[in-house]
């Protein structure tokens, strides 16, 4: 994986490499704490997959392989920054402090949202690919108008990169010099479609043509993802305008639990990427450079298990929403069709106490 354009601070083997533009600023403690995040979100992910298999979730979109990109980016955020995810940013949600069970409300099909986006400064999942990227730029324009020292970080995939909304976002961000960072996780697939169908050239190059910098980072390198994102956010907050980051990574699992990846990719490829696992390489670094003991890793694994158990309990405890709740919050003000719907449903004996 020698690629001059790829920012890498840690090899797949966990060895540090230098980069002319980026240096790792993280302490051993910070790296360990981020390692912990990665382990936990992966564990929560496998738990969610099994919850889905057991019929407790309608769907699950796994993130195995993308923990480096997400925890790297997520930990680079300042508290007041705002994030606009797509639907697979479970690692970002974790970094924003969203209780994992709230994240799963969508996948348990009890809510179309799940958390208080203003409280966590993390927008709700956007399923229609690309929509959120424009919303993010708009939010960033609001930051500008408020003169606030904040930035926006927004996420989309290699597939979504082809959507007009994403591309218009580039136009807008550049035109208004908006404090937004576009974080594209190129996990090399949009469901079955290889990223080469979306672009013949590396995606990060698009940015330059719109008048702002693009950076390609090794998405399985936590340290690099952190530094590149932090620098881009700092730059945005300082008035430097947008940056696009392409995190070159790999979706180890299926697109979602409804997907069958054997139809469109070979195991050998997955095997190759297993050797680039973002968690393993940080672990190797922690062992070699920071002499982190096995017991520390065991503690983290145990904590991850506890989190998973908690998640399971929380999910199982989630009841069926009151059908009448579908009429709540459709409008802020009164609306006759809402009142009528409520009455109709109540007359059917559906809503209320069950």
């Amino acid at each position, binding site marked *: 994986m020698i690629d001059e354009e790829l920012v890498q601070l840690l090899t797949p083997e966990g060895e540090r490499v230098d980069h002319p533009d980026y240096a790792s600023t993280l302490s051993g403690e910070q790296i360990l704490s981020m390692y912990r995040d990665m382990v936990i979100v992966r564990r929560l992910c496998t738990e969610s997959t099994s919850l889905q298999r057991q019929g407790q979730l309608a769907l699950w979109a796994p993130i195995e392989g993308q923990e480096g990109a997400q925890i790297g980016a997520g930990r680079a955020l300042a508290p007041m920054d705002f994030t606009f995810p797509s639907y697979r940013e479970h690692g970002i949600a974790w970094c924003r402090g969203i209780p994992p069970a709230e994240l799963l409300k969508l996948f348990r099909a009890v809510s179309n949202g799940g958390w208080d*986006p203003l409280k966590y400064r993390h927008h709700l999942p*956007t399923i229609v690919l690309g929509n959120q990227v424009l*919303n993010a730029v*708009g939010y960033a324009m609001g930051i500008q108008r408020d003169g606030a020292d904040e930035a926006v970080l927004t996420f989309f995939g290699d597939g979504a990169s082809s959507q*007009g909304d994403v591309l218009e976002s580039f*136009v807008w961000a550049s*035109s208004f010099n908006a404090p937004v960072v576009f974080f594209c996780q190129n996990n090399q697939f949009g469901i079955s479609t290889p990223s080469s169908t979306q672009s013949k050239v590396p995606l990060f190059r698009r940015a330059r043509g719109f008048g702002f910098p693009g950076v390609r980072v090794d998405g399985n390198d936590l340290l690099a993802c952190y530094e590149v994102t932090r620098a881009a956010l700092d730059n945005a907050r300082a008035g430097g305008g947008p940056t696009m980051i392409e995190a070159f990574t790999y979706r180890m699992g299926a697109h979602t639990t409804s997907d069958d990846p054997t139809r469109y990719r070979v195991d050998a490829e997955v095997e190759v990427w297993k050797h680039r696992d973002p968690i393993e390489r940080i672990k190797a670094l922690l062992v070699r450079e920071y002499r982190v003991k096995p017991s520390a890793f065991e503690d983290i694994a145990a904590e991850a298990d506890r989190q998973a158990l908690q998640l399971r309990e929380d999910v199982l405890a989630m009841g069926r929403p009151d059908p009448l709740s579908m009429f709540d919050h459709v409008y802020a*003000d009164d609306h006759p069709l809402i009142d009528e719907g409520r009455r109709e449903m109540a007359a059917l004996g559906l809503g209320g106490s069950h």
Partner: protein
Amino acid sequence: MATTTMTMAKALNEGLRRAMEKDPKVLLMGEDIGKLGGVFRITDGLQKDFGQDRVVDTPLAESAIVGTAVGLAIRGYRPVCEMQFDGFVFPAFDQIVSQVAKLHKRSEGIYNMAMVIRLPFQGGIGAIEHHSESPEAYFAHTPGLRVVSCATPNDAFWMIQQAIDSDDPIIFCEPKSRYWEKGEVDLDGPPRGLCEAELRREGSDVTVVGYGSSVKTILRAAEAAEAEGVSLEVIDLRGISPVDYPVVVASVLKTGRLIAVQEAPRSASVSSEIVAEVTQRCFYSMRAPGVRVAGYHVPYPPARIEEDYRPSVDRILDAVDQVMGYGQ
């Protein structure tokens, strides 16, 4: 009572100005709305007075105008987006249907999508294709949105302010062919509720409802009908979604006859909705089935023949004959 005469265009301009003065979070976005003042000059002078950050000349893409407005609304702004013409709202349709209409719900009430999308709509100005569309039914069919239209300068002045004040997203349909017609504006108010229908003319034989530019056409038809001894009650709906049914129903219970007028094609439209709903509510009182006078099921025609497409006084009178003569 301070009233003054102005065009609908000016009334909108004044209404926008008032809203911007009242609330610094109000901002206008759109193509050519700054220096140019918009192709219809509705925002004339506002950029000069409120600056480029509040009257934003955007790059040219409607999905982005609405999509960024969503983000601004999340941030607590109250964006007012101008679509240059009705036919150019469709690139923004996805953002409107998937985000604008649904985010208040998706966020369980946390976000207010307090946003106005201004849409110069309907035909009658001799324009080329895509400049004379009536897309209101698409929005009326979409839960989460409200759709309104003003028919007079006074309503334009007040309704635009109320729409901006509303915490719900509003599709604000402006009858562009009436922009330059003058009317009295009561600057003090208080105005009628944003979605409330208004009786424009009392009558006893037939209830005729419409909105936007059709209201004036219907009033003309009412005069002609009166000459023939038929009394039309004319209701300006103002609210297109939701429709103010209590007002319409009360009228139809009285007259027993309903005509719904719109420029949009008839199929699966606002007039279909009104006829279906009013029939359900007034079944035994109706002496004739409700009739729709609408655009034909064709793309908006070249302007030289647009007046044969748009509901005319003649077509409304034909419908009046139809409901008056029904069953005879």
